């Protein structure tokens, strides 16, 4: 039997975003959980499942946030799947409830990346060649190599990448909780910004900030009895596309686009809809080029067409597919895949404020993890109100 619409998001708790040096990740997580419980009209006693992030951006100590919020959850899972994991957690929560392990699950991400640096990403990937020996550090080089290749193949311009940064910043300038709420940027700012890993500049990179979010998933039936309108989970998809750069020829496609087709097929198959039914999308945007490439992976544009699509304003309100409507990772705040999931839920609740997509009923949320050179994980989740 399909899981479509059997489960729903019933609570959202978000701390402030930015630099929060006087709170540990555990304290941030506890605050987010408390806010999510209040939002749903639940108490800690109602939660019997806890799924939280591990790996980079983490720092949560297993169960301390539970003790701080009165939750005694028999089911505690840690997940590490880089930027793809928020949607992985959705699938895990649904699976856990479906199998009778628990009834109501809280998903938690806490980041203290701005105040507690040092836990960042080291050299990654490549079996034999050891990237650190060649000076390859951080995920920015992956994005830069992808952008370089994409520019070469399809004539992508810096102005087109910049139009992604500007579109998202305009959204964030309308969202008071966004890290970049009061910082406007122009195309000149983008073109003159310092290069970080060329061809990508400062505004092609996501933010580094502190903050936490907690989301509660429960049965649709229970969600309907709670304070907020349920946001139903129509479907989700997960694909670890384990293609390494040494493999020829298909693996090299990772350098001009992420492979998300299998994840999309799974999610849209469960939901029983097509990409044309999507009213608003929240793409994983650790880098401008990641967002751009997914427009093609999810079939919104043809190969090589995404740059012109974005430049024409199609991601803005009133465009063909309003997307990343809070300003997301590039301008709102980086909570890994939770940035996009949180905004997707808010859009389906009609809580988007000035960034609300009018009459939006169905939302696509995506995640990405891994590196282009050693395979990547594409995940997505389809929500409806």
């Amino acid at each position: 039997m399909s899981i479509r619409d059997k489960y729903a998001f019933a609570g959202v708790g978000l701390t402030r975003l930015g630099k929060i040096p006087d709170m540990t990740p555990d304290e941030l997580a506890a605050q987010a959980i408390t806010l999510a419980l209040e939002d749903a009209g639940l108490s800690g006693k109602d939660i019997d499942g806890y799924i939280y992030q591990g790996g980079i951006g983490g720092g949560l100590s297993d169960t301390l946030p539970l003790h701080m919020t009165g939750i005694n959850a028999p089911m505690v899972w840690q997940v590490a799947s880089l930027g793809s994991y928020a949607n992985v957690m959705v699938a895990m929560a649904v699976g856990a409830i479906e199998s009778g392990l628990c009834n109501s699950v809280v998903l938690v991400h806490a980041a203290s990346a701005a105040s507690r640096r040092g836990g960042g990403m080291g050299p990654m990937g490549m079996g034999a060649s050891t990237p650190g020996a060649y000076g390859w550090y951080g995920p920015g080089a992956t994005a830069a190599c992808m952008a370089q290749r994409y520019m070469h193949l399809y004539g992508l311009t810096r102005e087109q990448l910049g139009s992604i940064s500007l579109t998202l910043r305009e959204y964030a300038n309308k969202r008071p909780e966004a890290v970049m709420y009061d910082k406007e940027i122009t195309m000149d700012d983008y073109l003159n910004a310092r290069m970080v890993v060329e061809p990508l500049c400062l505004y092609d990179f996501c933010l580094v900030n502190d903050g936490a979010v907690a989301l509660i998933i429960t049965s649709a039936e229970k969600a309907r009895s709670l304070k907020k309108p349920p946001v139903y989970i129509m479907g989700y998809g997960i694909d670890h596309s384990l293609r390494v750069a040494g493999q020829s020829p298909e693996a090299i496609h990772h350098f001009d686009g992420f492979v998300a087709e299998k994840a999309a097929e799974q999610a849209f198959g469960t939901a029983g809809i097509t990409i044309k039914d999507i009213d608003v999308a929240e793409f994983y945007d650790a880098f401008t080029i990641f967002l751009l490439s997914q427009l093609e992976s999810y079939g919104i544009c043809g190969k090589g067409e995404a740059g012109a699509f974005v430049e024409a304003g199609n991601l803005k309100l009133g465009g063909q597919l309003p997307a990343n409507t809070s300003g997301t990772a590039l301008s709102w705040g980086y909570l890994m895949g939770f940035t996009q999931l949180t905004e997707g839920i808010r859009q389906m609740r009609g809580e988007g404020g000035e960034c609300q997509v009018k009459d939006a009923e169905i939302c696509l949320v995506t995640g990405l993890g891994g590196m282009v050179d050693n395979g990547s994980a594409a995940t997505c989740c389809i929500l409806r109100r």
Partner: protein
Amino acid sequence: MPEIKKQLPAITESNRPFWEAAKRHDLVVYGCSGCGTLYSHVTVCVNCNQPRMEWVKVSGKGQVFTFCIYRQSFHPAWAGDIPYNVTYVKLDEGPLVMTNIVDCKNEDIYIGMPVAVVFDDISDKVTLPRFKPVS
């Protein structure tokens, strides 16, 4: 302050033949003895799904596939090298390898540039394959 050294390759049981070959100034890749498909990673052949792999010497010639230029330091040992390139070279035999392009200005690197391997003996024990432009 102690000097912060650049990271050396992590030489393991599975990749040791690669680094031993580099020491001899040979470039080797991992190849399937069944179908002949070549890989830069230590892996199982995706065509045959068989671990019938062997190290194969290649020409060391190829083309720049993609690259990036670090304008900001991500690791203190590399701060003095800014700006530097990290490049993927597609070997004439097929596999992609991560490397640096040397004997070339960063602004002169382009996708499709013909290159050949040079062996950089960075210590008594370790030799890094890098690539330089060739006409």
